[in-house]
C-alpha cells in the first residue's frame, strides 16, 4: 500500500521523463548512432585481440603462443592500422552518424550536412605536421574516444545551422523565371555551405594560432571531467539510475544518449592504449557494462533465471524456462515483465543492487589489477562469460563473472523464496490466483 503509493507517484514522474529524454532529438540521434556503429567497433576489436598475444620469452615452448606472438609482431603495422581506422576512428563514425540521424529527424537531405560534418571533423581533429607535395604527415591521435565531444559538437552544430539557414531561405536569391529551378536550388544550398565551411576554417585558424587543435584544447580543458566520468561513484550512480528505469519497466534507451559516449569513448581510448603497448587507463567501458555489470541483461537476472527454472510455482518455472536462453544472450525482458520484477516490491532491492554489486566488485578488481581491463567489444548479446574473456583476454575475468553469477544468485535467493511462497499459496487457490499474482 505504502509501496504502491510511492511507485504510483514515481511512475507519474519517471515515465514522462523517459519520454522526454528519448524524444530529445540530439540524444536520440546519438543513441541511434551508437547502435549503428556496432559493425565498425566489432570488426575493429578483432585486430586489437589478435595483437594482444601473451608475452613469450626464450623459455616458452607452447607452439601456439609462439606462433601467435610471431604473427602479432610481423603484422603489427597492419593490425594497428586496421584498428586505427575502425574502432579507434570511432569519433569520425559518430560525427557522420549523428549528422545523418539528425538530418533524418528534420527530413533534410543528409548528404551535404554529412559531407560538411566530415570535413569539419577532419579539419579540427587531425593535426597536420608536415604538408607538401608528397610525404604529407598528419597526426590522427584524437579521432579515437577523445574526439567524441567534438564529433558531437560538429555534427550537431552543422546540421542545426544548415537546417536553420535552409528554413529561413538564407541565400535563396529570386531568379528570373527563365532560370531553371535546380539552379536556384543550387544557390540556396551554396550560401549555407559557405557559411558552415568558413566557420570551421575560422575555428581552425584560432586554435592554430594558439599552437594547438580544437580537439586537443577541448580535451585538455575537459580532462578533469572525463577523469571523473570514469570513477566508481559515477559508475554506481549510472548503474542505479538505469536500474530504477528498468524497475519501472522502462528501457534505458532514454539514457543511452548520455551513457553511449562515455562507455564507448572510454573503450576506444583503452583500445588505442592497448595497441600502443601502454597500460590501460579506463574501467567504465561498454564491455564493463554489458559483460560484468548486467550479467544476463539489466537486473543481472541470469542467476535468477536459473533459480526459477526449478521453482515450485508454475508461473515462475514457466518464466524461468522462457527467459533463460534470452537472458543468456543479455535479454532480460521476459524475466522483468514475466516474473514480474517490474514494480514488484519483493524484488526492489535485489533488482537494483545486484547489478550495482557486480559493478563495484568488477570496478575494484580492475582498478587493483586483479582482473584485466577491457579493450575490445562484441555485441551486447554475447554471453557474459565469453564476452568478458574476449574483451580482456584475461581468463581471470571469466572466473570473476562466474563468481558474480553465483553471488547474484545468493542475493536473489531469499527474495525469490518469499515471492515463490506467495505465488504457490495463490496457485493452490485457483479462483484467487490470476488477479493477485501480479500485485
Amino acid at each position, binding site marked *: 500500500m505504502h509501496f504502491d503509493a510511492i511507485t504510483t507517484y514515481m511512475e507519474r514522474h519517471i*515515465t514522462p521523463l523517459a*519520454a522526454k529524454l528519448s524524444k530529445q532529438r540530439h540524444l536520440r540521434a546519438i543513441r541511434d548512432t551508437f547502435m549503428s556503429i556496432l559493425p565498425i567497433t566489432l570488426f575493429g576489436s578483432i585486430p586489437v585481440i589478435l595483437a594482444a598475444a601473451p608475452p613469450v620469452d626464450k623459455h616458452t615452448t607452447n607452439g601456439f603462443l609462439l606462433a601467435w606472438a610471431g604473427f602479432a609482431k610481423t603484422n603489427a603495422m597492419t593490425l594497428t592500422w586496421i584498428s586505427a581506422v575502425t574502432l579507434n576512428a570511432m569519433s569520425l563514425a559518430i560525427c557522420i552518424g549523428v549528422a545523418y540521424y539528425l538530418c533524418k529527424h528534420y527530413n533534410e537531405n543528409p548528404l551535404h550536412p554529412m559531407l560538411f560534418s566530415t570535413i569539419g571533423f577532419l579539419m579540427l581533429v587531425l593535426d597536420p605536421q608536415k604538408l607538401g607535395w608528397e610525404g604529407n604527415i598528419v597526426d590522427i591521435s584524437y579521432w579515437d574516444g577523445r574526439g567524441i565531444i567534438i564529433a558531437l559538437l560538429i555534427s550537431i552544430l552543422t546540421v542545426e545551422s544548415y537546417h536553420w539557414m535552409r528554413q529561413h531561405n538564407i541565400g535563396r536569391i529570386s531568379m528570373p523565371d527563365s532560370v531553371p529551378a535546380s539552379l536556384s536550388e543550387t544557390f540556396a544550398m551554396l550560401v549555407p555551405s559557405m557559411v558552415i565551411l568558413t566557420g570551421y576554417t575560422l575555428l581552425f585558424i584560432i586554435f592554430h594560432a594558439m599552437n594547438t587543435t580544437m580537439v586537443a584544447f577541448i580535451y585538455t580543458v575537459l580532462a578533469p571531467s572525463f577523469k571523473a566520468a570514469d570513477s566508481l561513484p559515477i559508475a554506481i550512480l549510472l548503474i542505479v539510475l538505469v536500474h530504477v528505469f528498468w524497475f519501472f519497466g522502462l528501457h534505458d534507451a532514454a539514457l543511452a544518449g548520455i551513457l553511449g559516449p562515455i562507455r564507448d569513448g572510454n573503450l576506444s581510448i583503452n583500445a588505442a592504449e592497448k595497441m600502443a603497448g601502454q597500460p590501460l587507463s579506463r574501467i567504465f567501458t561498454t564491455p564493463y557494462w554489458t559483460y560484468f555489470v548486467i550479467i544476463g541483461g539489466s537486473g543481472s537476472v541470469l542467476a535468477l533465471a536459473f533459480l526459477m527454472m526449478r521453482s515450485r510455482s508454475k508461473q515462475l518455472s514457466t518464466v524461468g524456462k522462457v527467459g533463460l536462453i534470452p537472458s543468456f544472450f543479455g535479454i532480460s525482458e521476459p524475466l522483468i515483465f*514475466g516474473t514480474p520484477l517490474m514494480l514488484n516490491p519483493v524484488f526492489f532491492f535485489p533488482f537494483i543492487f545486484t547489478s550495482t554489486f557486480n559493478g563495484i566488485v568488477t570496478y575494484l578488481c580492475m582498478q587493483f589489477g586483479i582482473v584485466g581491463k577491457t579493450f575490445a567489444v562484441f555485441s551486447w548479446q554475447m554471453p557474459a562469460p565469453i564476452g568478458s574473456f574476449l574483451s580482456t583476454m584475461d581468463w581471470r575475468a571469466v572466473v570473476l563473472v562466474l563468481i558474480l553469477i553465483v553471488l547474484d544468485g545468493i542475493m536473489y535467493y531469499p527474495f525469490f523464496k518469499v515471492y515463490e511462497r506467495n505465488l504457490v499459496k495463490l496457485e493452490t487457490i485457483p479462483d484467487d490466483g490470476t488477479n493477485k499474482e501480479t500485485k
Partner: protein
Amino acid sequence: MKNIMLICNAGMSTGILAKKIQAASNDTIKVHAYAEAEYEDYLDGVDLILVSPQIRFLADDIAAKSHKTVKTIAPQKYGMMDGKGIYQDIVNEIGG
C-alpha cells in the same frame, strides 16, 4: 494477409515474440519485429503496430509518425512471451 509490426528498442526481444505470434496464428498473419530507430522505413502495408512495454512511453510518438493504430503489449504477456494471448488481442483489434 494482415501485417503486424512489433517495435522494441533493438528489435531483439520482440524478435523472439514475433515468431511465437506468427506460430500461434498458424501463419495467417505476418509479424515482423523492428528496432525503434528503423521502424519508419518499413511502415508500408502495416495494419497494426504493437509496442513493447519497455518503450511504452514512445507509443504516442510512434502513432503520430506512422498514422497507424498503435497498441502497447501488456507487460505480463510480453514477459511470458505469450504468443497465443497476444495473437488473440490482435484478432480482437483488427479481426483475423
